[in-house]
């Protein structure tokens, strides 16, 4: 996918314009995002990289609508997210977004299938149907035989695969991933990314991944480098067999 020329660029699924976010007040005020402009397109995997403290996680939180911004505009899938109330943002998030976290954030008391079903339960889908759909997703991520396992009985890689299934179960159009391989060793990280690319990527979905892990850069389509609160570069990632 190439968005280097404006003439060929489709309309953005996520559009960020002039995003500013600060924390603290007075002498302790720290500006973390200093006017971010960024478009993310359907069908692509965008990597957000950069040094620690550069604002990656803050930007991710802003895109997800779980952090209020000071200035700018965020449009997600045609919805002016920055203008919505917190309650409406929460509802929209539940319907349109999926999340994958560094620490998995699985509920320890729930089985793998029940964990995957949680986003559907939040959407008030009945438990039997939700668990049924969760099992289908677990099959897709290769954990069909682990559906009744508690998270503590799964390896780190398996837990992250459960988290991927959970992120996809409500068929989100925006998948937000925060350091998805940071808690995993190299081979497991690679497997998780392969899986994420295989089952997460779709023509009507965009995936945003914050990562430090250079070993997984090749899984992305584009890479935005965020340094000191500014996007200093956006580059397409060359893939084998492409120019």
């Amino acid at each position, binding site marked *: 996918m190439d968005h280097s020329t404006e003439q060929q660029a489709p309309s953005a699924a996520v559009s960020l314009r002039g995003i500013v976010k600060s924390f603290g007040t007075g002498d302790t005020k720290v500006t973390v995002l200093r006017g971010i402009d960024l478009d993310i397109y359907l069908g692509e995997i965008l990597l957000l990289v950069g040094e620690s403290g550069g604002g990656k996680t803050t930007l991710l939180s802003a895109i997800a609508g*779980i952090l209020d911004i000071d200035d700018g505009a965020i449009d997600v899938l045609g919805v002016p997210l920055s203008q919505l109330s917190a309650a409406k943002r929460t509802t929209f998030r539940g319907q349109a977004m999926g*999340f994958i976290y560094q620490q998995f954030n699985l509920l320890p008391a729930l089985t793998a299938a029940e964990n995957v079903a949680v986003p559907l339960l939040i959407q008030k889908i009945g438990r039997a149907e939700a668990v049924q759909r969760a099992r289908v997703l677990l099959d897709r991520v290769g954990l069909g035989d682990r559906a009744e396992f508690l998270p503590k009985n799964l390896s780190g890689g398996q837990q992250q695969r459960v988290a991927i299934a959970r992120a996809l179960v409500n068929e989100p159009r925006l998948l937000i991933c*925060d350091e998805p391989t940071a808690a995993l060793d190299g081979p497991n990280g690679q497997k998780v990314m392969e899986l994420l690319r295989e089952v997460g990527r779709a023509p009507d979905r965009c995936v945003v991944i914050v990562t430090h892990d250079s070993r997984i850069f090749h899984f992305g389509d584009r890479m935005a480098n965020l340094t000191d609160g500014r996007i200093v570069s956006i580059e397409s990632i060359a893939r084998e067999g492409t120019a």
Partner: protein
Amino acid sequence: MNYVALKMLFGDRAKYLMLLCGLTFAVMLIVQQGSIFWGLMIWSQSSVSNLNVPIWVTDPGIAQVDEVKPIADTAVDRVRSVPGVEWAVPLYKGLLRARLSNGDYHQITLTGLESSTLIGRPAEVLEGRFEDILQPDAVVLDQWAVERMGGPAIIKIGTIFELNDKLARVVAIAKTQKSFTNIPVVYTTYERALRYVPRERRTLSYVLAKAKDTLPVAEVTRRIQEQTGLGAFTADDFGWKTIGWILKNTGIGINFGTTIFLGFIVGMAIAGQTFYLFTVENLRQFGALKAMGASTFTLARMILLQAFTVGLTGYGLGIGLATAFGFLTARSGGLPFAETWQLLVLVLMALLAICAFSALISIIKLARLEPAVVFR
């Protein structure tokens, strides 16, 4: 999400058990102490309830049922003459010492009932026939007298003892509510009671009366007061007057009140703190739920469900334990224990307050929670 909430609650077994123990202990303490307190209050007005008559007439300055202030013998006729009174009978009540054949002395409460009607007699007789009280020198004891005066080997039907150097022969044992002072009660006829006690100018302790069925008891009681100048009380009012006197003049109310209050505070502290910790430790999970689209209202509902589930479980267990305690200790009558539905409702309300408080501090924490916590 109710299912998720309950699985989260039961999944953290250690915290769940700690919460359950705290609430169970609090409920048990409050119910047990409340029941003993109320049992004591029932004992304190047993002199009223044991006689089971609707209207009590005596000196207007009387403070409680066991404080006898004798009135003129003419009071019986004066009460009978009040319109609306169906009947009125005299009652003697006073303290006396009984001397057993083995030389032991025991203080007793002598109760003299009007001989032609025996109004005020205990409803249940354990041994013998109450009507035999009409035989010469006959007395009826309550079962607590048997216990206090040496047991069934010494006090039984046919036992003879002395009251003020006059013979008294036991003809029956009656079942009564234990009294606050636990002084044995000896029943006899009014006329014989006056022969047992030393001569006094005034010997009538109470006039027991009943209103005609067509009139409210309270109205007739008011008429007796107005027309005789005596103190007239319904049985309920007299019982409450006695309870009020006990509460005001002894430390019982403060003592039990303090324990019950402490049970409430301890329960609230344990439940509040543990539940708060439970929430704080699951903050990332709650943050994840919030990020996935769960509203603050949904999370609050989950917290409330968790709090009230553990609360109501603790309520059931606490009441079960308190009831078992009451059953084991009070069935012999040795300990006052009255577990009333009013007490259980009050404890339920206290428990709901504890749960609501615990849930509230967790909900406040969650309401302020930024779901961005999951990205940290």
